[in-house]
């Protein structure tokens, strides 16, 4: 986990320090390293929503926003906005890829272990207990909902759901009391 965190920190540092001059060699270098490490992480940036946003940012924004001081085949655009958009696109790609690389290299268990170390005292105890109680909580919630669903429904839907929440919390508290007395 430490190695993954170090890699993430380095890549995030590079992303933050990107500018119009250094991006031309830093972005390809980082992309190359990430590709060699795990090419599957590139799936995160191949989503149409993200690609559409990037296209809008790099192609449309310089055409409509900023002072138009340059032309490409007769189409005038803002060079300042274009450069700004390219840097932003490079930065976003590096950040998303490095975050995905980090999360793909650590397991949920490692993350739970890591949370114990960041001043969350008794986290392992609480988390183990919550994992233990989860099936019962699910059963309590399911049973309360099914019982309440079969009752004649009132006109006021908010009152209906509020009463369901009251029953649910009462049962959960009873369960917690039973559990704490058995643990004591």
């Amino acid at each position, binding site marked *: 986990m430490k190695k993954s965190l170090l890699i993430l920190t380095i890549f995030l540092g590079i992303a933050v320090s990107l500018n119009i001059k250094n991006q031309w060699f830093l972005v390809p270098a980082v992309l190359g390293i990430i590709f060699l490490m795990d090419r599957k992480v590139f799936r995160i940036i191949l989503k149409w929503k993200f690609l559409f946003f990037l296209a809008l*940012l790099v192609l449309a*924004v310089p055409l409509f*926003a900023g002072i138009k001081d340059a032309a490409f085949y007769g189409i005038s655009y803002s060079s300042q*906005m274009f450069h700004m958009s390219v*840097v932003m696109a490079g*930065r976003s790609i590096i950040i998303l890829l490095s975050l995905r690389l980090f999360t793909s290299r650590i397991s949920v268990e490692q993350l739970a272990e890591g*949370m114990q170390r960041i001043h969350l005292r008794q986290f392992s105890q609480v988390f183990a207990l*919550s994992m233990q109680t989860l099936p019962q909580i699910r059963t309590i919630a399911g049973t309360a909902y099914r019982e309440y669903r079969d009752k004649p429904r009132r006109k006021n839907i908010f009152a209906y759901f509020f009463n369901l929440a*009251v*029953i649910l919390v009462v049962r959960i508290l009873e369960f917690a009391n039973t559990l704490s007395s058995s643990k004591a």
Partner: protein
Amino acid sequence: MAVDSLGSYQREQTEIKNSAPREHDFSRDTVLIAVFGALWGLMEATLGVFLKGLRIPMGGAILTAMATIILLTGRYYVRRRGSVLMMGAVAAVLKLFSIGTVIAGPFMAILLEALFAEIIISILGVNRFSYILTGMFLMLYTIVHPFIAQGLIFGDDIYTVYLETFRKAAQLLKLHANHLGLVLALYGGIHALFGSVAGWLGYRLPEKVRREMQQLEKSAEELS
């Protein structure tokens, strides 16, 4: 009427003080944090997926409102600093377990919600005002969150792009900045109202639960 309400308020405060867990009562606190954290995580894993699948408008706000009610109810019973943060950490890790992999977005969103709620309640204490304020803040944060996230991913320049784009669009549509302000105020107002209702419910729910439990105890005594 006023005297009666004052009397009931004092009674309520005394009951709250008496029912508040004592310093040494860690095992009950631990169980309650685990149970409410599990409930929050379960809600995020089931209702969260359901709402996302349906793609209903303001689905994220509904989820935040539900989470607010759960965390505030949990905090009512666990009078310990850091308890909301712990419930949030449990819920966030449970959510990741339900997905089966580590995804930064929902994990950070749950942790941030818990952190903000923890800060507000730790400063203002457990009372109706702090609960309503927490609900309002969390719901308003759902509007700001995407902009903060985009600022982190794309950098500060994204705000320049947004402002420039808005300026151009406003020129084309002959709109004034006041119009955008009005729309934002209306949208924020709806969220704030929704959040204050969630906060109020978060305070009302444990009170109703207490009465319900008292009734249950009374009927159990009568039966025995």
